[in-house]
């Protein structure tokens, strides 16, 4: 699922998206990473924040990669929910670069809010100007953050910053923080146009 940023590469502490997520995670927190790929993020959070973490992953090769990385991984299909996890049992549930590939988006957000105090989501911003340009020129976008051709993409639910924020509002998720990145740079000016990757931290609306 999480191939859009080349997740099969070995742990790379320089990855700006990891650093950004880590900055939101309190030291020693309990973290669940959904669609954890090879477990690099779990390992990064463990090593940099002292977090206790589990990954959830469906793909056999990624599960094996997690084993090799020495991180806890539970092989399971996100689409069928998070039944193995007790309500409120995590400090953070992370859905990094996976939201756009999930079939049942509403259910996964609901489950994230159930098992955890806070959710962290990152996704490629479909509203990024280069994507818009490609659509305007009559083509589906292919870019660094969306590296697939329209016919072989795992990404079925692309959205923009505006779309996601509206979705959160409708689904009882209160956004606590947002960061928008383009490469290594953080974007504050016109983020829905200039941002390539979006990061949100949210909680259950009280």
């Amino acid at each position, binding site marked *: 699922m999480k191939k859009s940023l080349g997740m099969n590469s070995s742990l790379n502490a320089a990855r700006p998206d990891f650093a950004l997520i880590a900055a939101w995670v309190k030291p020693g927190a*309990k973290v669940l990473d959904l669609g954890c790929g090879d477990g690099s993020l779990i390992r990064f959070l463990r090593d940099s924040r002292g977090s*206790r973490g*589990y990954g959830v992953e469906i793909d*056999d090769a990624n*599960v*094996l990669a*997690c*084993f*090799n990385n*020495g*991180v*806890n*991984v*539970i*092989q*399971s299909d996100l689409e069928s929910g998070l*039944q*193995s*996890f*007790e309500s409120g*049992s995590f400090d953070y549930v992370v859905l990094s670069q996976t939201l756009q590939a999930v079939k049942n988006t509403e259910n996964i957000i609901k489950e994230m809010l159930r098992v955890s105090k806070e959710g962290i989501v990152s996704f490629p911003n479909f509203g990024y100007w280069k994507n818009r340009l490609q659509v305007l020129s009559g083509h589906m976008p292919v870019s660094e953050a969306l590296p697939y051709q329209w016919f072989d993409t795992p990404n079925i639910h692309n959205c923009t910053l505006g779309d996601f924020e509206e979705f959160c509002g409708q689904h009882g998720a209160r956004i606590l923080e947002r960061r928008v990145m383009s490469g290594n740079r953080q974007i504050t000016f016109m983020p829905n146009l200039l941002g390539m990757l979006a990061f949100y931290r949210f909680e259950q609306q009280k």
Partner: protein
Amino acid sequence: MLMQDSNSFSTVTPQVARFDTPLHLKSGAVLDSYELVYETYGELNAARSNAVLVCHALSGNHHLAGLYDDNPKSAGWWNNMIGPGKSIDTQKFFLIGVNNLGGCHGSTGPASIDVRTGKCYGPNFPVVTVEDWVQTQVRLADYLGIDQFAAVAGGSLGGMQALQWTLDFPERVRHALVIAAAAKLTAQNIAFNDVARQAIITDPDFHGGDYYSHGVIPRRGLRLARMLGHITYLSDDSMAAKFGRELRNGALAFGYDVEFEIESYLRYQGDKFASQFDANTYLLMTKALDYFDPAFPHNNDLSAAFRFARANFLVLSFTTDWRFSPERSRAIVRALLDNELNVSYAEITSSHGHDSFLMEDRHYHRLVRAYMDNVVV
């Protein structure tokens, strides 16, 4: 003692440990003394930190890997998993295989002589449980000078023993490998076990379990029990793939002799087993399976049962295993997660049913290797 080639042991020798401290069993019975047969592979390191105990399944024994000197066909039951350079690497770990108490491969069991009577224990051998086995295995660990196992591993009934270790001796096991196991049997499983037992007990040669003194064995019952068991260890798909509806002689015979290849196979397996395994041991082992239920003393709350467990866990299941289905493994995982224990779980796609855990499967073996490579010794 051991000579090694590139990926297998060329010779292995079983050893015997004798225990003369009375053993109080869960049933209330007491065994004054007993012997356990075991084998070891690899070398215990100076820190005594690299020992791995491998617990056997229903019909298993202590012979995990390698060959006996005098028998080129004597490869151990987990030879594809254990050995130099294999997934559980004996160049890193010191492996111990043990024949459980009540067994019929050298450890004290129903066919052993009871010194008080000078006769075989037979039906008087006490019922043993998974907890009892763990108790005997910790004594074996003491005997071998091992304070803490790097890992305790097992498939099926062996996985149950690995689980029990983490409950009874949390400080003495760092990792538990629980493969194709369950935290308790389903009613369907107990039903299968009882049909198997009834086949043995109602065999005219059973003689109330005292067939030793009659010079016979309940071969027919044991054979039926194994045939039934064997069906449940395979999957419908694997049987279809291996045997289909192939006829032995190409045409229907309209009789009750062997016609289909599957019948031939099951009868062969049944006969082989009946000539190698003790019927009373089979009864004991299936009872141990039925009784295993660590959640029972905790109001059926499995999470509560693991409250004091400290080990790191590897839980593996196989998609076509309907006797110990992935759902059963996920229940174990859930209980471990509830206790915030380190656990990894993989659900391995395999067509071989419950027997998958003994099969050569690349992904399965790579998972175990990757996990064991990260075990610190």
